[in-house]
């Protein structure tokens, strides 16, 4: 059984709390890890990233210290799109940001805050499908 890591990167504590509750309600995998901006998230990944595990990352864009784009620049160097689903989660979405995100193979989709249970259930389905592909 492949290990599934859920990572939330957001500087808004309350939104992390909401996100966590939504994840619980949708019976998402093991408890998520949250980071307040891109830097600690990147440090953690550098240490613990394992190509044999699966990753679901919810990434905010506007954050202090290291924003979502910078995180993507660094993470793209070693995080593989084959074992990762990365969702950019923002409070409001600019068309220019969507265009920009197309340059990153790692980005799966743009989501608008808050992310509701029904969306998480759909993501769960995708994860399950992807994991089964990797396993077989």
């Amino acid at each position, binding site marked *: 059984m492949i290990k599934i890591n859920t990572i939330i990167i957001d500087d*808004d504590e309350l*939104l992390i*709390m909401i996100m966590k509750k939504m994840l619980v*309600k949708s019976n998402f995998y093991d408890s998520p890890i949250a980071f307040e901006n891109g830097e600690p998230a990147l440090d953690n990944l550098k240490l613990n990233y394992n190509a044999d595990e699966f990753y679901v990352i919810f990434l905010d864009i506007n954050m202090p210290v290291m924003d979502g784009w910078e995180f993507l620049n660094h993470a793209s160097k070693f995080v593989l799109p084959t074992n990762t689903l990365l969702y950019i989660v923002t*409070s409001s979405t600019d068309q220019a940001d969507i265009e920009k995100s197309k340059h990153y193979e790692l980005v799966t989709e743009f989501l608008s805050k808050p992310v*509701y249970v029904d969306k998480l259930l759909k993501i769960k389905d995708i994860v399950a499908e992807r994991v089964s592909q990797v396993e077989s």
Partner: protein
Amino acid sequence: MKKDKELFNILVVEDNQGDFLLVNEFLYEFIQSPKIIQAKSFSEAKNIIEDNQIPIDLILLDLTLPDKQGVPLIQEMMLLAPQIPVVILTGFSDLSFAVKTLSLGIADYLLKDDLNAILLYKSIKYNIERNRNMMSIKNSEEKYSDLFHLSPQPMWMCDFETLQMTEVNKAAIQYYQFTEAEFLSMTMKEIVPAEDLNDLVDEMTALKNQNLSFSQRVYRHLKKDGTILFVDVRLNVLKLKNKNVMIVLANDITERIHYVEAIEAQNEKLHKIAWTQSHVVRAPLARIMGLINLMSDDDDATSPDEKKELLKHIINSAHELDYIVKDIIDQSQNIIPTTKQ
């Protein structure tokens, strides 16, 4: 033949009473009620004309008056009444002299010996009519000239090939602050900044190559003191005395351009504010939406204490949203255009 009912005021300058009576009689033959004024000398005629009581339509002039005769008489008379046709009556039959008088501006030359009523009437009628037409042409020419010179819009004429200025109106002088003499010593290139000269060359080339007679584009022009003006320049190429000339109309749009620039800058500011605000506003709103969603679930997974906690967060986020909206209102007060004059 019916008598002419038109009113004619005719000044007969004739010192010979017999000749005067004869002319008088001829005049009445074809004219219903001619107003005939007699002057017996040049000075008498001069007084009547200068007095200006009666608008004189035509002068019948004898060439041998007691105080003036011949060419000097004609010359003085032309100076005195350049707008009134003068018909010479003379007993002096000399074709070369007659031709000479015509070149001095005389309307007609009649020999007293050959004179009859119909000849006199025809000459009078024809010359008055012709004079009226000439006057109206002159008036309309003046009107057109005024249209150019008194137009409130800067205009000038220049040679199509050399761009040498040939005529310039008052508005242009006022606007560009060059004197008329300065203007007329310049070409159109001299009011265009050096870095924009290619635009002018391109426009002229396009006119020539495509054989167009009209063109329009916006230029930067230089005032005498070096100030840059934005002008909408419209020009027409036309043939005048076998030369291609251009009539150029320059419409000042400096203020308009500045105004548009100010509006664009303001729009940019507004765009930025709208964008950042939508982000800032959306953050607490997203929280509220998420929290309400969590609270409104039917399942009993959320304990009453937890719900209280969630409600507290909703209230805090609502306050934050309220504060942000107030801030936006304050900020939008600052975008009122500053360039308004």
